[in-house]
């Protein structure tokens, strides 16, 4: 792979806080995946994270769980998702990540999965239940062969030694979980969290960080972005997807409001 990964490019040239938005694939309706991607890009999102639905998403709270179930009930599979994303790169220019759990990837076949990711133009993957040691011994070589970044998470409980290890193994950015929680469980940023953010900033890591979990609006996005390269919004956006009557316009409006463009 000679060309620079889109994620790296983004962080190199970014001049303002980076907004990464998570959307469950095939939600609210099976055929909405690309519509959602287009509207996110039009609104000015910097990175899109597409959730591959899973029956047992243990790191996720109620909102994302429920969206996963709806999507599965509508027939979404990893294979269908790749089909939907086949022509994505004709229009989508922002970096795109796939987020999901390891079991569907294992059943699809790790190499086949990475190959498909490269084919449709996926830049990175977030698999919270794939542990770092397992990744290094079994997956890293395949991921790298297909130019795919594996994004690791750190939490307030992660030790400095392990953070250093995560930093050494990371490419693109580190996903900094803002508090001990599942997705969508807590909102806002507290003083304790700011102490944690400061501690991480003081470590001089080589990778930039995006803060996720508990970021839901312009205020929490701005606050988080003071301590990192940007932030990730998941549950708050999925909630909007579940309620909106006007998918395209509401998504564009949501992203613009978070970015302060409206």
């Amino acid at each position, binding site marked *: 792979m000679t060309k620079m990964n889109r994620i790296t490019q983004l962080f190199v040239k970014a001049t303002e806080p980076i907004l990464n938005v998570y959307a469950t694939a095939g939600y609210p309706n099976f055929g909405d995946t690309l519509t959602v991607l287009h509207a996110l890009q039009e609104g000015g999102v910097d990175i899109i994270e597409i959730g591959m639905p899973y029956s*047992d998403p*243990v*790191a996720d709270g109620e909102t994302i769980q429920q969206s996963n*179930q709806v999507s599965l009930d509508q027939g979404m599979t990893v294979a269908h998702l790749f089909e939907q994303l086949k022509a994505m790169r004709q229009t989508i220019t922002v970096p795109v990540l796939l987020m999901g759990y390891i079991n569907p990837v*294992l*059943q699809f076949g790790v190499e086949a999965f990475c190959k498909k990711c490269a084919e449709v133009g996926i830049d990175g993957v977030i698999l919270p239940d794939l542990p770092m040691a397992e990744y290094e011994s079994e997956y890293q070589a395949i991921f790298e062969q297909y130019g795919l970044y594996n994004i690791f998470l750190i939490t307030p409980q*992660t*030790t400095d030694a392990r953070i250093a290890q995560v930093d050494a193994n990371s490419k693109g950015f580190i996903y900094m979980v803002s508090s*001990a929680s599942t997705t969508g469980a807590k909102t806002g940023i507290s003083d304790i969290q700011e102490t944690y953010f400061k501690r991480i900033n003081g470590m001089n890591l080589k990778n930039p960080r995006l803060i996720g979990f508990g970021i839901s609006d312009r205020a929490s996005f701005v606050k988080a972005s003071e301590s990192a390269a940007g932030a990730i919004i998941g549950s708050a956006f999925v909630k909007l997807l579940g309620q909106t009557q006007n998918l395209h316009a509401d998504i564009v409006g949501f992203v613009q409001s978070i970015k302060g463009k409206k």
Partner: protein
Amino acid sequence: MKQSFQVDERGYYGEFGGAFIPEMLYPNVEELRSRYLDIIAEPAFKKEYDDLLRDFVGRPTPLFKAERLSAKYNTNIYFKREDLCHTGAHKVNNTVGQILVAKRLGKNKIVAETGAGQHGVATATVCALMGMECIVYMGAIDIERQAPNVARMRMLGAQVVAAQSGSKTLKDATNEAMRHWINNPVDTHYIIGSVVGPHPYPDMVARFQSVISEEIRSQLLEKEGRDYPDYVIACVGGGSNAAGAFYHFLDEPRTQLIAAEAAGKGINSGHSAATTFLGKPGVLHGSKSLLMQTADGQVIEPYSISAGLDYPGIGPMHANLSLTGRARFFGVTDVEALDAAVECSVMEGIIPALETAHALAVFDKLQAKPDEVIVVNLSGRGDKDLSTYQQHLKLND
């Protein structure tokens, strides 16, 4: 090299096991992994554990010769009476051990999942004993079908929370308990009730349950003049009672290990929980094992009449025992289990738990010889299942 059926230093049994957990759980699981062997080897820990097993749980549990069943099947059948443990099943062997570990890790709150409610009751019991706060997640459907155990947990001071996601049974209760632990990582220990979950749980739970086979050995020596049976039979959902009953015989080639899985309405009926027959390698609840799943890797909702066996996975130790052929697995249907429960009740005066009844349904299939010795792990008593028995056996008509 000699084949080992024990866990290796990476936390694997053959190709199964490991610790597939989100980073949010890593510090807790890593702390447990790095300390559990040292903690349970401490003389003070051993003494406290052994004393509680004797004085609180009521161990050793008897090894009882089931004379009438032995005569019927023309062999020698013994029951390991785990049903006589305090709280009515083997589950308490593990909860006593884990709460002592939790204390040494400085935790003061406990979270647990439960299927039939036996593990929940056993957890609530040791929390009451140690003055720790206890939250038990239980599938909403299981809360309905196991009402007496829900009441027992509440009387013991535990908070019972209904798992409303997915199939609303054991799998979902486990998801919710894991989420609770993610949200409460500092002061809480998660007492997993079976030999499932990320390493070191399968090994730790197996060790705490291994007292079952340790006692079988010495009791059999006394009764039969040899310290191994020809067969050990146990039911398997996640597989904790089987792990305990098999443990000291894993490397004893003269002992056949027999596992009874819940085949529900028939292995291929679409309503079953017979994981070794229907599962493929996959990852659920933190370990790689056999798993009932779709081609896309979504977990399939299992079915069994017994809430304790209603689980789409199986402990990694058992997946390895199945794959290597070290243990023989039988699928036992709801109807066969109900028949076996009646047989055990009327012929031996013991009403078994529905889970246990699956283990009692395989005598026919074994074709044991008259001089052979079978030990069945009688893992629990049937009080909690009375309403199911009443309904299916028409006991009140």
